[in-house]
């Protein structure tokens, strides 16, 4: 894949998200919040793809890093009252960055001892890490413990979500399309050969982990200031699985595919929910002919995933030849 116009793409995307934010007031709020969810999912899935897809490490703790970023940024912004436009966005930027750094630090702490493990073992350790974060948050009275934490400011907007999604895509894509970053793919392909070719495999794995965690932390900050309410349960194991599914469905190590999968899998449950709302069509006022879709939408969602995995194990959006 060629990546010559990386900076042009980044600037264009930033400008586009800025313009989108200007017209956001005309968008139906229901859709607006779905757009936020899509942007956040893209940040999560693309950053997880660096770890799971390109570098070939199986992390199941991405929601844990998201939680670290979400709580860190929320605690910071909750210190402030009402602010004018510039102060608010300035503080928000700082809070998002701090959330990312806190998550990156967590990534470093988890990564250094565990990245010597491979495959299933690493998956179990990262899963355990995610659960530890959840349990710690559940017992921290300062952040509301199990009652949850209200976030005072709803500062997330289209500029921040899609601007940061663009930054994430830029960072991951420029990394893996550089001589430095080809090391990630080399580690994924064959650790022994990579080591023999002078690649410090441990350092590469930790780097991928820390960068991935950083963006998960930023996505957490966006999530916190969009939902404005955080509960530890929202960052559980199932949440991590959702992002892993996006990566697998998009095709491991295929950024464009993973972005499409993140969009699709965020829209799918909502779409199924809408289908079931057709009871208000004329002539159907009494019964809900499609109501069963709404009632069973998570079952349909799961069945669709099973069918997709059986028919396209190389990823829904991967058109390259099957590897190996």
């Amino acid at each position: 894949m060629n990546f010559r116009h990386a900076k042009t793409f980044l600037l264009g995307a930033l400008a586009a998200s800025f313009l989108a934010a200007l017209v956001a007031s005309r968008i139906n709020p229901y859709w607006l919040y779905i757009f936020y969810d899509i942007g956040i999912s893209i940040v999560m899935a693309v950053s997880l793809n660096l770890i799971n897809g390109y570098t070939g490490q199986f992390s199941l703790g991405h929601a844990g890093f998201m939680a670290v970023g979400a709580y860190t940024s929320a605690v910071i912004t909750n210190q402030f009252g009402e602010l004018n436009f510039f102060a608010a966005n300035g503080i928000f930027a700082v809070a998002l960055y701090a959330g990312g750094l806190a998550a990156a630090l967590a990534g470093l702490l988890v990564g250094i001892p565990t990245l010597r493990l491979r495959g299933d073992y690493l998956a179990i350790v990262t899963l355990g890490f995610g659960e530890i974060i959840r349990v710690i948050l559940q017992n921290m009275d300062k952040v509301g413990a199990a009652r949850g934490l209200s976030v005072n400011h709803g500062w997330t907007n289209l500029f921040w979500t899609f601007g940061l999604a663009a930054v994430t895509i830029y960072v991951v894509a420029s990394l893996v399309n550089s001589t430095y970053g080809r090391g990630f793919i080399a580690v994924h392909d064959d650790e022994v050969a990579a080591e023999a070719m002078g690649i410090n495999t441990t350092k590469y794995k930790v780097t991928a982990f820390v960068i991935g965690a950083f963006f998960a932390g930023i996505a957490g900050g966006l999530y916190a200031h969009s939902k404005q309410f955080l509960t530890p349960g929202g960052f559980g194991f199932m949440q991590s699985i959702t992002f892993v599914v996006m990566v697998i469905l998009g095709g491991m190590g295929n950024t464009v595919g993973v972005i499409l999968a993140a969009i699709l899998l965020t829209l799918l449950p909502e779409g199924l929910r809408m289908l079931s709302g057709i009871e208000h069509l004329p002539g159907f006022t009494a019964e809900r002919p499609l109501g069963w879709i709404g009632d069973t939408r998570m079952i349909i969602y799961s069945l669709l995933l099973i069918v997709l995995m059986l028919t396209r194990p190389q990823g829904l959006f991967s058109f390259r030849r099957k590897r190996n």
Partner: protein
Amino acid sequence: MSALLQLDKATIRFGGLTAVSELDLQIGPSELVGLIGPNGAGKTTAFNLITGVYQPTAGEIIFDGQSTVGRNPYQITKRGIARTFQNIRLFPSLNVFDNVRAVFHLHLRGDVRHALWRGMGYHAEEKAIADRALELLEIFQLGKFRDEPAKSLSYGDQRRLEIVRALAAKPKLLLLDEPAAGMNATEKVELTRLIRFIKDKFQISILLVEHDMKLVMEICERIAVLDYGIKIAEGKPDEVRANPKVIAAYLGE
């Protein structure tokens, strides 16, 4: 003449088994040395000792004036030892070109920030790397496959690509682990020519571990013979061939 690589009583034990015992071996600059021996003699283990995959239980390994004991394989590669594998280990999801380019990060001046900022220096460096990688591929007639996935090449071409990849690390010493394994007679003739060519063109030392006696006898300047982890003979091909110990090791007494 000071040796480029010097093994001084290098020993490795796995539990009760001594896989390589007090191995002394010297390789000089631009020398082509063969390491042979029957199955299970410890050839690949000796290889893994030199490249840092295993650490010696006792003894010393000196490369280019410095000890390599306690170093990781990637650090040893940086110092100038590159290898190929008995069972070819290319990077299957990268294409031919990127397999070679991936190795150039060894000589990169920049790091992550460099790759992210993508300034002038970055582009100049990437261009230089691409040119050098292509040049290497062209030397070995692999340029036409540059965009093919590494896995789609023929067996002989994959072998050659693995050697090109090792050369991209700019080694002073190239280790070839059974390069003729699985090759037919024509490919072996081709390989013999290739190894000679590498030695002349790049002026590097080569250590060759090989089963195929004919090939080793034909191209090596000096041969060391291992049996049960012990060096039983060393010398010019003709001397080794005539050595009764070697004949006994290969044919049985």
